[in-house]
């Protein structure tokens, strides 16, 4: 089979398995869920407007990676490259442009082979 057929078959089979699993969950759950919904339990405190008070902003989801690992990267970018001196900025742009040229050379030369 070709790649498209394989993708379609795999995706279809994924749903073939997922659908009965979900139906089974709903059937079992309906018989055992306890009555009406209640408020979330937060350390014994009643929370009125819980959606605002306990949800975390989406910008904080990657705090681990940004604060721990990319901190040095950002500090280099901010302090030594974007220092306000024009030469630093030209150096920074020069690096990116030369990287782009290098990548395009690799892609073009590899494209001839592939």
């Amino acid at each position, binding site marked *: 089979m070709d790649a498209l057929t394989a993708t379609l*078959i795999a995706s279809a089979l994924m749903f073939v*398995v*997922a659908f009965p*699993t979900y139906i089974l969950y709903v059937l079992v759950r309906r018989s055992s869920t*306890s009555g009406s919904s209640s408020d*979330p339990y*937060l350390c014994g405190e009643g929370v009125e407007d819980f959606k605002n008070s306990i*949800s*975390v902003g989406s910008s904080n*989801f990657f705090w681990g990676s940004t604060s721990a690992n990319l901190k040095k990267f950002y500090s280099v970018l901010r302090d030594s490259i974007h220092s306000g001196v024009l030469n630093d900025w030209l150096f920074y742009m020069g690096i990116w442009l030369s990287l782009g040229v290098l990548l395009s050379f690799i892609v073009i030369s590899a494209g001839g082979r592939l």
Partner: protein
Amino acid sequence: MTSFNVLLAVLSALIYPGLFFLVVVGLLTQWYIRKLVGRLQNRIGPKYVGPLGILQPFADVVKLIFVKEEVSFRGRLDKFLAIFMALGLGALSAAMLFTPISPYVVRSPYDVVVFIYLMLWSTIAFAVIGLSLSNPFTVAGSSRFLTQILFAEPALATSLLATVIVLTKSTSTPLSIYSSLTGGRFNIVAAVVITLSLISFFIASIAKTLIKPFDIPEAETELAGGLLAELSGPALGLATILHYAEVAFLTLITTMVFLGGPYPFSYGELLGALVFALKYLAVLTLIAVIKASVGRIRIEQSASILIKYVFSLSVVALLIASFF
């Protein structure tokens, strides 16, 4: 496709090597890890249900799904997270059909891309679990999980890609999982690439399945279970099944892709199945020893280890596989 093929494909996805097989092997895997970790820590481990407690994980899951009630509350997206867990199980079951142990094999050139895409679904399911329960612990767990996965998942994909590239180079079906598992070209470059990829894939799969030392997203003493803190009853049962199906799936893939599967025998032989099972148990034993002997590391340590030593290793393997 003829109607026989359709039936075979559906049965393969639902029973063997799909859903039923993954659930049974996943729960047996859970028993083996729990028992071994227990013995390594001078505990007995599972004991009462079945011989040597082998049926304990089954009893736990049956109790969670059919006996325990699910406590629900306002603002929680119960059915949404169940849909994603079901899709995660479906994706793992469908991915098993790319391997030679399946009666109905899905195979095409470049199908490794689809395979990697299917592997991603269980990760998405676990991220969605944390985000759809409005609780600070689950959100914090989800945040850590996403941070860890940001480095673990690319390492998994890259190391798998490197191995499949090197094994299917200059064959008629390039980048096909099935071809790399059955008719791979093995040479010295392949040996180097597979060794590097094995180390990278193994550590990344431990990080992906939240096994110690990478269990900071569900740190029980700190986050009260993190991602799974608010789950109970059938939802927790489903999450347990998905988690151990994922452990079993990644261990099976490690055994098949990087350790040669039933080599020196072939798929379908009795001795081959025995060798396969021994390799599978060896990988699980290594996981259990690591789990029993190391402590939990912090999230920035985990991210740092994954990017410095695991992802970089897989990139080196990919470069070697591409240029030699």
